[in-house]
C-alpha cells in the first residue's frame, strides 16, 4: 500500500468527501496535476473539470465547476464552488451547468469574454470526459 494523503472535498454547503487517498488528480487552471504524498505545497485555482481520487476504496470522480485546491505534503483540500459525484452527474445536471456558463459568457464584458468562453469549453470537455 502506497503512502496516503488526507483528501477533503468541501463545497459551500457541505463536506462531500474526506478520505485517505493515494493520489488525487486535480483540474488546475493551468492544466491537470496529480498530487501524491510529499507534493510541494501549492495553491491552485480550478477550471471546470473532473477531479479523480484514488484511495483504498478505488477511484472516485467528481465533476467540479471551479474553486481552488490547497495541496501540501500530507493533505489536499479542494474547495469547489459546485461539486457533483460523477455517478450523480447525469446529462441533465451537466446541461444545467453548461447553460449557466453559456449565459454568463453571453453576458460577459468584452475583457472577460475569453475567460467565460473558456469555461464553456472546459465544461464541454468535462462532459465528454464523463461520457455524456
Amino acid at each position, binding site marked *: 500500500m502506497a503512502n496516503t494523503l488526507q483528501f*477533503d472535498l*468541501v*463545497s*459551500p*454547503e*457541505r*463536506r462531500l468527501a474526506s478520505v485517505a487517498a493515494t493520489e488525487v488528480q486535480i483540474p*488546475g*487552471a*493551468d492544466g491537470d*496535476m496529480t498530487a501524491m504524498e510529499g507534493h*510541494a*505545497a*501549492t*495553491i*491552485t*485555482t480550478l477550471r471546470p473539470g473532473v477531479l479523480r481520487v484514488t484511495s483504498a476504496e478505488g477511484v472516485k470522480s467528481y465533476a467540479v465547476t471551479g*474553486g*481552488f485546491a*490547497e495541496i*501540501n505534503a500530507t493533505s489536499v*483540500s479542494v*474547495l469547489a*464552488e*459546485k461539486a457533483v459525484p460523477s455517478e450523480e452527474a447525469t446529462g441533465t445536471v451537466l446541461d444545467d451547468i453548461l447553460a449557466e456558463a453559456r449565459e454568463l459568457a453571453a453576458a460577459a464584458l468584452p475583457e472577460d469574454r475569453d475567460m467565460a468562453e473558456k469555461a464553456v469549453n472546459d465544461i464541454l470537455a468535462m462532459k465528454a470526459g464523463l461520457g455524456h
Partner: protein
Amino acid sequence: MPSLKDLKNRIGSVKNTRKITKAMQMVAAAKLRRAQDSAEAARPYAERMNAVMGGLAASVGNSEGAPRLLAGTGSDKVHLLVVMTAERGLCGGFNSSIVRLARVRANELLLAGKTVKILTVGKKGREQLRRDLGNHFVGHVDLSEVKRIGYANAQAIAKDILARFDAGEFDVATLFYNRFQSVISQIPTAQQVIPAVFEGGAEASALYDYEPSEEAILADLLPRGVATQVFAALLENGASEQGARMSAMDNATRNAGDMINKLTIQYNRSRQAAITKELIEIISGAEAL
C-alpha cells in the same frame, strides 16, 4: 364587569392562541435544528477560504496592483449597508435588533457627511426602515419564496453587490445580520465585506507555490469570498431567526397560560357572585312574606 358569557369566550380564544403559539414554537424548534446543521456544514468551507485568502491578502495586500475588492477604492464616501432580516415576523426582537443597529450606523454615517445606500434582504427590515431611511434604498432581495437557503441565493446577492461595486456605486459594503449565539441570545453584527477584512490571517503563505500567480488567485477568490460571507450571514441569520422565534413563542405560550388562569379565576368568581346574588334575592323574598 364583563358578563359570564364574555369571559367564557375570552378564555376560549386565549386557549386557541396558546395552541397556535405552542405549535409555532415546536415548528421553530425543528427548523432551528435544520438551520444549525446547515450552518455547521458550511463552516469548513468558509474557514479554509478565509485562511487561504488571509494568507494571500497578507502577501499581496500592500503591493501596487492589489485588487480593488481588497484595497478599496481609495475613498470611503459612499457606504452600502446590506440589511439582512427575516421574511416573517413573530420572532421577538430579531428583526428590530438588526434594524436598530443598521439605523444607528446609517445615522452616524449621514452625520459624518457620507452617502448611505441601503440594500435590504428580507421584507421585515425593509418595512421597518422605509419610514425614515426609505429614500436611501437602492434595492431589495426577496427570499420569501425560498424554502431552504442555498449557496445559489448567496451567490445571487453577492453578484448584485459586486455588480454595483464594479459600477462604482459605493466604496464600502457592510452586512448587518444576527449572529447565532444560543436560543435566547442572538448578537446583531455588522461585518464589512468590501474592502475585505481578515482577522489575524498573516501567516505562512510564503510556503506555498501558486498556480497561476498569487494576484490571479486572489482576484479569483475575492468575489467568491464575498459570496461565502453572504452565505454564512444568511445561515447565521436563519438559525437566529428560528431561535428567536422559538423563545418568543415559548414566552407567548407561557403568557397565554397565565392569562387563562387569571381569566378562569375571574370567571369562577363572577359565577359564584351571581349564585350568591340569586340566593340572597330568594331569601330576602321569602323573609318579606
